[in-house]
C-alpha cells in the first residue's frame, strides 16, 4: 500500500484527468455524436424500409382479395341479372299468352254475337221476304180466286179458319 501511494504521481493524475476529459469532449463532438446518429439513422432507415415492405405486402394482399371480391360480386350480379331476365321473359310470355287468350275469346264472342245478330237479321229478312212473297203469292192467288165467286167465298172461309188457328 505504501508503495502504491509512493508510486502515485500527482502530475500524471492531473494530466490524465485533464486530457481524458478533453478527449471525451472532443470525441463526443467530432466522433461519437455523428457516428451514433449515423448508425441510428441507418437503423431507422432499415426499420422503416422493412415496415414499408410489410405495408406494401399487406396492401398487395388487400388488393388481390379486393379483386377477388369484386370478381365474385360481378359474377353474382351477372347471375342475378340473368335470372331476372329469364323471369321477365317468362312473365312476358305468359302475359302475352293470357292477353292473346282473352283477346281471342273476346273476338270469338263478338264474332258469335255478330253471327247471331246476322242470323237473326237474316232470319227476319227471310221472314219478311217470305211474308212478302206469300203476300204476293196470296195476292196472285187471291186475284186468281177472286175471279170466280165460289173461290172467293172459300178463301174467306179458309182465312177465317187460319185466324182461329193463330
Amino acid at each position, binding site marked *: 500500500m505504501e508503495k502504491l501511494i509512493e508510486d502515485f504521481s500527482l502530475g*500524471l493524475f492531473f494530466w490524465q484527468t485533464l*486530457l481524458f476529459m478533453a*478527449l471525451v469532449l472532443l470525441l463526443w463532438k*467530432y*466522433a461519437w455524436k455523428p457516428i451514433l446518429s449515423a448508425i441510428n439513422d441507418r437503423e431507422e432507415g432499415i426499420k422503416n424500409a422493412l415496415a414499408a415492405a410489410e405495408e406494401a405486402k399487406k396492401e398487395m394482399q388487400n388488393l388481390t382479395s379486393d379483386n377477388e371480391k369484386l370478381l365474385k360480386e360481378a359474377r353474382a350480379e351477372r347471375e342475378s341479372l340473368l335470372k331476372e331476365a329469364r323471369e321477365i321473359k317468362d312473365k312476358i310470355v305468359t302475359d302475352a299468352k293470357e292477353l292473346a287468350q282473352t283477346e281471342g275469346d273476346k273476338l270469338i264472342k263478338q264474332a258469335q254475337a255478330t253471327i247471331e245478330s246476322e242470323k237473326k237479321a237474316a232470319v227476319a229478312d227471310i221472314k219478311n221476304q217470305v211474308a212478302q212473297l206469300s203476300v204476293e203469292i196470296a195476292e196472285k192467288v187471291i186475284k186468281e180466286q177472286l175471279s170466280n165467286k165460289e173461290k172467293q167465298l172459300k178463301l174467306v172461309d179458309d182465312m177465317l179458319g187460319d185466324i182461329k188457328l193463330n
Partner: protein
Amino acid sequence: MRNPLLVKFFLVFTIFFSMTIFAKEAEISSEETKTDLKTEIDEYIQHHLKDSHDFSLFSYTGSDGAEHHAGFPLPIILWDDGLVVFSSSKFHHGEEVATSGENHYKLDHGKIYKTDATGTINYDADHHASNIKPLDFSITKSVMMILITGFLMLLLFGGLARSYAKNGGIAKGVGRFFEPIILYIRDDIAIATIGEKKYQKYMPFLLTIFFFIWFLNMFGLTPLGVNVTGNIAITTALAILTFLITNLTGTKTYWKHLFDPLGDSMPWYAKIPLYIILIPIEVLGIFIKPFSLLIRLYANMQAGHIVIMSLIGLMFLFKNWIGSSLSFGLAFAISLIEILVALLQAYIFTMLSALYFGFASEEHEHAEAH
C-alpha cells in the same frame, strides 16, 4: 499449430535466440556476473513499470564502454514557487544535476528532488529521499502516450464519423473495423445495463473509456514498452471520473436505495437497529466500487508486464538453450494471453462503469421489483 510452416518458423526463431545467448555466455560466465544480471534485470523491470521523464526506446553499451540511450527528451514542468520549465535532456537520464535559474534538481528513482548544486540527496532511515519534492507536472512518457493515443483516437473515430457523411450512412476505411465494437458497447453494454431511456448521455464516456484503455493496453504490449494503464495514477483518474459521473447523475431512487434500502417494508423503529449497520455498508459501497475498478485495472496490467518481462529476463539468466527457448515459448504464450487481457480489462472497466451508471439512473418503477 497445424500450420507446419509456422512450427518451423517458431523453431528456427527459438534456436536463433538461444544461439545469441550462447554467444553472450562466452563473454560473461562467472557466478558473480549472474547475480549482477539478476539485479540488473530486476532494476530494469522496476524502471520499466514506472513512468519516465524521457522517452527512451532502448539503451545499449557502446564500444567506448559508456551507456547510450536511444530516444528523445520530454519537457519538464515543475511548480516550485513559480513555473519552472526545462528539457529532460538536462538530467542526462538521472546522471546529472539539472539547473534552472537558481534551483537545482536531480532525478532519483524516477522522481524529481530539489537539491544543492552538487546534487546531494539525503536519505532517511527507510531509504526514502528526504529532499523537497517540487510539484511535478511534466509531460512524462505516460502523458506523451496519452496524447498520442488521444490524437490517434481523434483521427480514427473522426475519420469514421466523416466517412458516414461521405458514403451515405455506411462506414468506410479502417473505422469499419470499429463499428461493430461501437455497436456492441451500445447494445450489449450501455442499453443492457442502463436501459433504453437513459443510456445516451453515458455513451461518450463509455466509448471513450473503452477504446482509451484498450489502445493503451495494446501499446503496453508493443516494444515501446509503455506501462500507462498499469500506473495507479491513471487508473485512479479513470475510476474517479466513473465515481463522479455515477453520483452526480444519481436519481432520487438511487439515493433512497442508499439511505433507505428497506423502504416501507417495516416500521421506522424496526429499521433503526438495522440501519446502524446497513447505511455505513451502503455508503462504503459507493467508494469501494470505483476503488475495485482502479485496483483491478492497475493490478492486471502491472502483473502482465511483470510476468512478460520476467520471462524475457529469464532467457538471459538461463544461458542454456533448453531453458531459454522454454522461457521464450512461455513469454510468447503469455504475450498472446496479454493481448486477450488487454481487451478483457477494457471490457470489464467499461462494463462495470456502465453497471454503476445503471444503478445510478434507476427509476422508481424499476425499483419496485426489489
